[in-house]
C-alpha cells in the first residue's frame, strides 16, 4: 500500500493554481514575485515526482537548473523593483504603466 503518485501531482497542481491566483490578484510587486516562486516550486514538485515514477534521474537534474534560473531571476527582478521604488515610493503593479502604448 504505497502512496499514489497522483497525490503529489494534484498537490502541485493546487499550489500552481494558488500561485497563479496570487499573481493575478495581488497588486504589490514583491508579493507577485513570491507567487511566481510558488508556481516554480509546484513545477519542481512535479519534476521530482515524475523522476521517481519513471525511475529517471533526469527530472532531478532539471530541478537543479530551475533552482539556478530562479535564483538569477530573483536577483535581477529585485534589482529592478528596488530601482523603480527609488524613483516612485509606494508604487503598485497597476501604477507601473510607463511602457503602455
Amino acid at each position, binding site marked *: 500500500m504505497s502512496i*499514489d503518485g497522483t497525490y503529489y501531482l494534484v*498537490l502541485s497542481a493546487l499550489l*500552481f493554481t494558488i500561485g497563479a491566483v*496570487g499573481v493575478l490578484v495581488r*497588486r504589490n510587486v514583491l508579493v507577485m514575485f513570491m507567487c511566481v516562486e510558488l508556481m516554480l516550486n509546484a513545477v519542481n514538485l512535479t519534476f*521530482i515526482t515524475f523522476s*521517481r515514477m519513471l525511475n529517471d534521474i533526469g527530472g*532531478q537534474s532539471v530541478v537543479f*537548473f530551475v533552482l539556478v534560473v*530562479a535564483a538569477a531571476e530573483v536577483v535581477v527582478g529585485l534589482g529592478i523593483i528596488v530601482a523603480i521604488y527609488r524613483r516612485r515610493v509606494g508604487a503598485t503593479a497597476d501604477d507601473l504603466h510607463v511602457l503602455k502604448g
Partner: protein
Amino acid sequence: MGGSHLALVHGLNVAQQIAFFALAGAMVLSALRMVTTKNLVHAALYLTVVLAGAAGLYILLAAEFIAVTQVLVYIGAIVVLMLFGLFLTRAPLGTGQDLDNNQRWLAAIIALFLFGVLGVTLQKGFKGTHVNAIPITDGGSNTAAIGVSIFHDFVVPFEVASILLLAALVGAVVIARRD
C-alpha cells in the same frame, strides 16, 4: 527475513502517507494565507513554510540532494532577499487596503479552469502509478547519480547556466548602481 522486510516496507509506506498528508495540508494552508494575508512580511514567512514543506516532500520522494539545495537556495537565499526587498522598498507593513485589485471573480474563474485542466489531465494520465518509500534503484547514492547526470547528459545546460549566472551578476550590478 523476507517477512520482516515486507513489514518494514509496509511501515515505511504508512509513515510516508501520514507525513505526506501533514506536509500537504500545511503547504496548502500556508499558500492560501500567503495569497490572502494583508501583511507583506507574513506573506514572506508563509512562503518559507511552503518551501520547507516542499523540501520535506522531496525527502519523502528520496531526492535528498534537491531537498538540501532547496533549503540552502530558497529558504537561505531567496526568502532573505525577498525580506530585504520588502525593507528596501518601504512596502506597507500594516494593513493596506489596496493590496488586491478588483479582478477577483475573473481570477477565480481562471483558477477553477486551470485547476480543472491540470488536475484532470494528471489524474487521467498517471492514475495508479505508485511511489514507493524505498527507491527502486540500488547501488550508488542519489546524489552521485545526479552528479553523473549533470556532467554527462546536461553538460551544455550546465555551461549555459554558468553564463546565465554571470549575466545576472553583471545585470544586477548595472541596475543597482546609482547613476
